[in-house]
């Protein structure tokens, strides 16, 4: 197996002095599709925040391609290939769709790539960030992160609050993104069924720890595993 692109070793992290994550060991490999499932408050968002440097790392190591990035600021981690699509989307309201994308554009990224992935954004490119529907905002948040050309995309509950038809469209986009064999996609979701349908590997979290780490197929085959570990079913 190839070396992991990201490795967390015995990580304890949280907000300020509060510890949310405890003793996290996790490796993410190039081209991997990883689902991260757990109830509210399980520590999924904190884990993504810790990878991006948005939370306080109390103990342990976070490595990117073997290099310790625990002390690096978020923009440096982004420059090294980590891209986060936050749960809150954080669209810049005073900027148009196109300006939101341009604000993050790097290297040889082009607007056309973003519009090819999300044709709807091209139609709305002159609209302000807050004139978009929830689904369009999510598309913009994803496209904006892609403008930074990440090798690892961290998607924090991207389907939350969206209509089923939009969720289906977004899942197709995630499939498209993951088709690049060098790009890893980490999907944090409460919709276990959708996440497991997408992923090849699944991590279950509860109370700030990883309680299960294995092939997504195992959880699809035996949904009672989900219930046993995190107290949720496939329909959550």
């Amino acid at each position: 197996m190839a070396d992991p692109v990201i490795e967390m070793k015995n990580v304890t992290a949280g907000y300020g002095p509060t510890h949310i994550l405890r003793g996290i060991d996790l490796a993410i490999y190039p081209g991997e599709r990883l689902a991260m499932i757990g109830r509210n408050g399980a520590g999924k968002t904190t884990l993504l925040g810790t990878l991006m440097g948005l939370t306080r790392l109390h103990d342990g190591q976070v490595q990117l391609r073997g290099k310790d990035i625990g002390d690096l600021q978020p923009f440096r981690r982004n420059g090294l290939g980590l891209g986060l699509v936050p749960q809150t989307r954080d669209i810049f309201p005073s900027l148009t769709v196109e300006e939101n994308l341009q604000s993050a554009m790097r290297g040889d990224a082009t607007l056309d790539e973003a519009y090819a992935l999300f044709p709807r954004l091209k139609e709305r490119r002159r609209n302000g960030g807050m004139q978009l529907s929830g689904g369009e905002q999510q598309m913009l948040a994803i496209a904006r992160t892609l403008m930074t050309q990440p090798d690892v995309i961290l998607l924090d509950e991207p389907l939350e609050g969206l209509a089923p038809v939009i969720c289906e469209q977004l899942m197709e986009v995630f499939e498209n993104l993951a088709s690049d064999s060098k790009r890893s996609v980490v999907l944090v979701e409460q919709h276990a069924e959708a996440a497991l349908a997408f992923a090849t590997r699944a991590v279950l979290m509860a109370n700030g720890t990883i309680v299960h780490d294995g092939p997504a197929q195992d959880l699809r085959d035996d949904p009672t595993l989900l219930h046993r570990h995190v107290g949720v079913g496939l329909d959550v």
Partner: protein
Amino acid sequence: MRNLIAPLALILLGVALFFLFPYNLAFATRIVIMVILVLSLDLVLGYAGIPTLGQGAMYGAGAYAAGLFAIHIWADPFAGLIAGALAGAILALISGFVLMRASGLTLIMLTIAVASICHEIANRARGVTGGADGLRGIRMDPVFGIFEFDFIGVTGYWYTFGVAALVFAFLVILVRSPFGLGLRGIHESPDRMMAIGAPVYWRRLAAYVVGGAIAGIAGALTAQISQLVSLETFAFALSAEAMIMLILGGMGRLYGAAIGTVVFMWVHHTAAANDPFNWLFVIGAMVLAVVFFLPSGLISLPAAVTRLIKGGRNGGA
């Protein structure tokens, strides 16, 4: 064509000022210089979201630098502008290393402190700056070696207007660039910008330095046109007035900075001439009215009127 309306209106405004104040071109020139200062504040506060009441520090540094440059080195106006811009940028860079680590009220207080320190240094360094008597003896060469600075102020006005137009065009390009868009992103969500790869501290510092250079140009113009630099260039009142002008016109719009400055200075001029004791009431009432009824500034007046008319029609229907 629609994209040309606003710049054309601004040029017409500049031409109108020349004809509105034919016997007081010094005042019209002062308005244009203040537009440049307020534009610099708009970049720093309106776009980058850096609250400051010390923009006068860079303005004063630019004024003294241009004045001293003209007296001791070279009296060419454009070389003096570069000297002023460099002085403003260097002061912004040095102070910005510390200032950009602060935020909110702390940052505001620190910016005031920087201007106060500059004021005191200029006051104490009497041998260089002239202290409380001001820096005198500035004589400028003709603009392009052709246009002498005349007593009426025609050359001074058009020279200042030309510089203001260039500064404005530069800022229009800057705020539409990825750097400028990034500044607006930082203003709205620094954490998000950080997570999409923007070095927030350095971007804010860069904006502060560019803003400082532009304020320095405004200061340099003051020194060259008035041929005198006084300690008042560092005064808190100047920085505070610049902020009021920006709020009045509308922040983060560039055109708002120009409109706010022209309206503020014209009302100030007229009110003070009519009632030297109570003119501040007029200014205060105007600012209050704008803040309450047009929170986005005078630049939002046409949109507000349109909404009002449409609302009235809908209400009547």
